């Protein structure tokens, strides 16, 4: 038993190491891809220059390369990675809290709330906060939705997964209707609105990188701290309680944290579906269902997936496709394949 556990731990560490390595390599390759093609060795030199400040690294290359990589591409690549990681770890948490493997960061209507907030800002051309107006409105919408969902859920007794899902569905339905109405009355802005709703990483800055990174990192550590409690909550409230855990308290802490992380992700990139659902599922095949392993593995692979998808829409496809559409197009069929393959195996 001891030996088998050691072997599993070794396999897990190898997986994590490979994922991290893949992430770095893909980020380097992706930085070189785009309208201006930059060879990977030059990308590495730019990185070395920015870190050490030694001008000799970039002396021989085209003077626009450092700018393109460091100020244009890297913020976008990093934001897509951070958002991918954030949505994936929130997916793990929502699935465990709601006792439902089909839950994702959007089940409770957080996305609909963010979309509604952002749409309002776009519809009325609000720019109280400069270029961050839409993001801040989206964030406020998401947090407002969370408060509404928790309020409705709490009114019918203790916070349970059933009441949460039910009130999430009610609130999402109302918000979707409102969003449709906004689309209907927004004649000129409708194109901007729809493009934003489908998600995009165009023109992200270092400020975006730093904001999302700090929130996602904080969320990551909070999730990891409660990882074992999260596992036990999925055994049901009575069992959790008899194992020394207060399920309602843990659920509230994790729900609020996960909603904040989701809200930050949505406010920076729009609505990007499927990542939060598919990544936790996929990673369960490789590292098992224990949250303390699933969370780091999901963070890395979510980052990898969204960065890959964003690189495809940015540099491979002839014109930009909204990233939300692309993730659904890649994720959907892949998910079907995994699902059919697994179901055919478990039927004896």
């Amino acid at each position: 038993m001891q030996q088998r556990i050691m072997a599993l731990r070794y396999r897990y560490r190898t997986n994590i190491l490979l994922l991290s390595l893949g992430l770095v390599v893909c980020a380097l390759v992706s930085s070189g891809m785009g309208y201006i093609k930059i060879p990977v060795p030059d990308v590495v030199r730019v990185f070395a220059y920015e870190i050490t400040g030694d001008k000799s690294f970039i002396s021989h290359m085209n003077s626009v390369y450092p700018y393109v990589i460091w100020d244009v591409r890297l913020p976008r690549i990093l934001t897509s990675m951070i958002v991918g990681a954030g949505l994936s770890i929130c997916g793990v948490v929502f699935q465990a809290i709601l006792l439902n493997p089909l839950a994702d960061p959007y089940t409770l209507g957080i996305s609909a709330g963010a979309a509604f907030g952002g749409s309002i800002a776009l519809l009325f051309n609000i720019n109280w906060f400069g270029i961050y107006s839409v993001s801040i409105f989206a964030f406020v919408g998401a947090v407002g939705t969370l408060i509404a969902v928790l309020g409705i859920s709490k009114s019918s007794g203790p916070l349970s997964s059933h009441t949460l899902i039910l009130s999430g569905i009610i609130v999402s339905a109302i918000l979707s209707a409102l969003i449709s109405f906004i689309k209907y009355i927004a004649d000129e802005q409708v194109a901007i609105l729809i493009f934003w709703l489908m998600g995009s990483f165009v023109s992200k800055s270092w400020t975006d990188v730093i904001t999302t990174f700090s929130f996602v990192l904080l969320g990551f550590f909070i999730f990891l701290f409660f990882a074992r409690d999260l596992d036990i909550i999925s055994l049901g409230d009575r069992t959790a309680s008899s194992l020394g855990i207060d399920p309602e308290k843990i659920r509230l802490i994790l729900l609020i944290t996960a909603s904040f992380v989701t809200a930050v992700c949505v406010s920076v990139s729009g609505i990007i579906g499927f990542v939060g659902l598919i990544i936790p599922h996929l990673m369960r095949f490789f590292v098992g269902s224990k949250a303390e392993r699933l969370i780091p593995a999901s963070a890395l692979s979510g980052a990898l997936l969204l960065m890959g998808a964003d690189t495809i829409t940015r540099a491979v496809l002839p014109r930009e496709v909204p990233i939300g559409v692309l993730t659904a197009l890649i994720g959907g069929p892949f998910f079907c394949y995994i699902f059919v393959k697994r179901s055919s195996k478990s039927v004896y």
Partner: protein
Amino acid sequence: MFKLDKVSFVYKKSSKKAIDDLSIAIERGHLWGIIGPNGSGKTTLLDLLAGVKKASSGRIFFNGKDISEYTKKELAKAISFVPQQFYIGIPFQVKDILLMGRHPFIGRFSNPSTHDLYLVKMVTEILRLSDLSDRYITELSGGETQRVILARAFVQDTPVILLDEPTSNMDISHSIEILDIIQDQVKKKAKTAIMAIHDINLAGMYCNKLIIIKDGRLICYGDTSEILDEKIIKDVFDVECKILEEKCTGGRYVLFKKKPVSTVSYPY
């Protein structure tokens, strides 16, 4: 072990008392059975004993101290609980679930100790779960899942174990096997088991103490051989029966009479 003093419990938004003025002293080292009709408060009583629910009035003492003065962690080291309803949607491996039973004893970021792993191994052998150990809980049948849930509580290795209908999804062979194991744990490891159980015959066969409740009120409690008789079955369950003493197993068997069908004629 447990002492209940005029305990009542009312569910939120309900006027009826689920547990009504119940006083009882539960001694250690027995296999206690809680029997009563559907909705009589068996599960609520277990929840109160487990500290999952707080009494609306009255006090519950566990080892001489009020149960509300214990921290959750302290209770988790003393009392384990096997719920009747369990739904696990996340595909954990059976061995992971068993190890979760050691949660109160393992520090937040530390690895399980050799003792923790030893207990998991022992329980896996006792409950014959070796074949299921690597399987996913979501793939198991109802009876298999129930055995895993039971094993999870055994791994917790507490002096008191509370069970809510532990055999409700099992066939008779598995039920007997499980109850044998529970009885064995009580005898050999000097544990106290308190079990809500529907099957009066199984209760009469395995439980040496019974608590009989109806509508949240205590009807009587004590040695099975003294209190389980025809009159009490008639009073509590409204069923005529005959009780047989079976000398070779020392158990009591209840033979039920059919209830006469109501005289109202069917309209078709």
